[in-house]
Structures are given as structure tokens and as C-alpha cells.
């Protein structure tokens, strides 16, 4: 059986990659995808511990996180579309007006 800490390492790796993506990319779509990576990293942890502790709560929380991810993607992409309509760009560093 694969020890739990292997999953933790994998999760940490995905989390770091996700954070790098969020911090460095300009394209908002890819930033949103990196956010999904981060959320997935969390889920791996939750499910791995759920297995180790034989407690299904971890999986429940994973479900909640997937729910949140869906909500976040929907709202994020909605904002993106609205933004693209007004400014004709998808670059995060060009989102520099608080109103238009």
C-alpha cells in the first residue's frame, strides 16, 4: 500500500505548481485553471487522509471543494466574459481599472 505521505508530496507538488501558475501567468483563463490545480491538491490530501483514518468525512469535504470549484469556475469565467466584452483582452495585468 502506498504510504500516505507520498500522497502528501504529490499534493504539495501540485499546490506549488498551481500557485506558480496563478502568480506568473497573464492569461486569466490559465490562472483560473491553476486555481483548479490548487483545489485538486487539497482534495488529494483530504481523500488520502480519509483512507488512512477510515473516516468518510474527508471525502465529504472533497465533494464540497469540488462544488466550490464549480461555483468558482462559473463565476470566474462569467467575469472573464464580461471583461472580455468590455476591454477585448484576457490579460490579468491589464485589469487595472476599478470601474469602466
Amino acid at each position, binding site marked *: *500500500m*502506498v*504510504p*500516505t*505521505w507520498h*500522497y*502528501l508530496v*504529490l499534493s*504539495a507538488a501540485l499546490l*506549488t*505548481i*498551481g*500557485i*506558480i501558475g496563478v*502568480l*506568473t*501567468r*497573464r*492569461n486569466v*483563463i*490559465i490562472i*483560473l*485553471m*491553476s486555481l*483548479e*490545480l490548487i483545489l*485538486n491538491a487539497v*482534495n*488529494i490530501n483530504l481523500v488520502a487522509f480519509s*483512507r*488512512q483514518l*477510515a473516516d*468518510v*468525512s474527508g*471525502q*465529504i469535504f*472533497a*465533494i*464540497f471543494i*469540488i*462544488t*466550490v*470549484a464549480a*461555483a*468558482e*469556475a*462559473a*463565476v470566474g*469565467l*462569467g*467575469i*472573464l*466574459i*464580461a471583461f472580455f*466584452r468590455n476591454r*477585448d*483582452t*484576457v*490579460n490579468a*495585468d491589464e485589469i487595472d481599472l476599478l470601474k469602466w
Partner: protein
Amino acid sequence: MMFAQGSFYVLAAVAVVSALLVITRRNPVHSAIYLIVTLLSVALLYLQLQAEFIAAVQIILYIGGIMVLFLFVIMLVKLDVALRQPPFNQQWWVAGAAALVLAVELVGVIYLGRGTAALPQAPPGSLQPNTELIGRTLYQNYMLPFEIASLLLLVAMVGAVLMARRKAS
């Protein structure tokens, strides 16, 4: 056992490599494809962790829902301009350094917490039948959070529709 071990490492490697590709590809469609690969391998890892339900949800919701939404949006916005611009912003080295610090920190935490590895592993099959267990827990112990989550989805739906809708013309 060998098989389980081996497949974990293969899947983990695939997940990490394609995650790296996600954040480095210039074209968001390619990023999305690699993200799908990552999500699929994570789903298979869930299977290995005896979380069949989560694995199925991951595939249906993440890949069949969220990623399709992503692709849809990518196709709606014109990317020709974005493709010619530099993909990374100017403070990338600051971000890289911060992420490096974070990585070190994470490794440290895992190392410090290695005691948990000594904790007894639950025997296989302890979370079966998976779907029934999740259903029971979800609707008995976590009823309120579940309802809140559905409310959240509703709000998100309304918000997304409102955002994406054109001004009445």
C-alpha cells in the same frame, strides 16, 4: 501490491508533469488538455484510495462540466492577440522565489509530520460500500453544509448568468 505501487508513481508523475505543462503552455486550449490529463490521473488515484464515488464525481463534474465550460469560454473569446503576447508577467521571478519558499516550507512540514506515517493504516475495504457511506454521512452529519453548498451553487449560477449576460440592448 507491486502493481498498486507502480501505478501510483506513474499516475503521480503524469499528474505533476502535465500540471507543469498546464502553467507553461502558451495556448490555453493546450493548457486545458493537460489539465484534463492531470484531473484524470488524480481521478484514478482516488480509485486507488478506494474513493470510487469521488473519482466518478471528479470525472463527471471536473472533466465533463468544468473543463468543458473552460473550453467553451476559450472558444468564445478571441485568443489571437493573447497568443502573440508574452505568456508570463513581469514579476514572475518574485513569484517563483515565493513559490520556492513555499515548496521548501511544504517539504519541511511533511518531514516534520512524518510521525503521521507511523499511524496505523486502515485496513482495505473499511470505506465500503463507498457510495452508501458517503450518502449517509452527507445527508445525516453534513446536512447543513450540504444545503449551504447548494445555496452557493445557486448564487454562483445567478452571478455567472448576470455577469455573462449582455446589457439589454
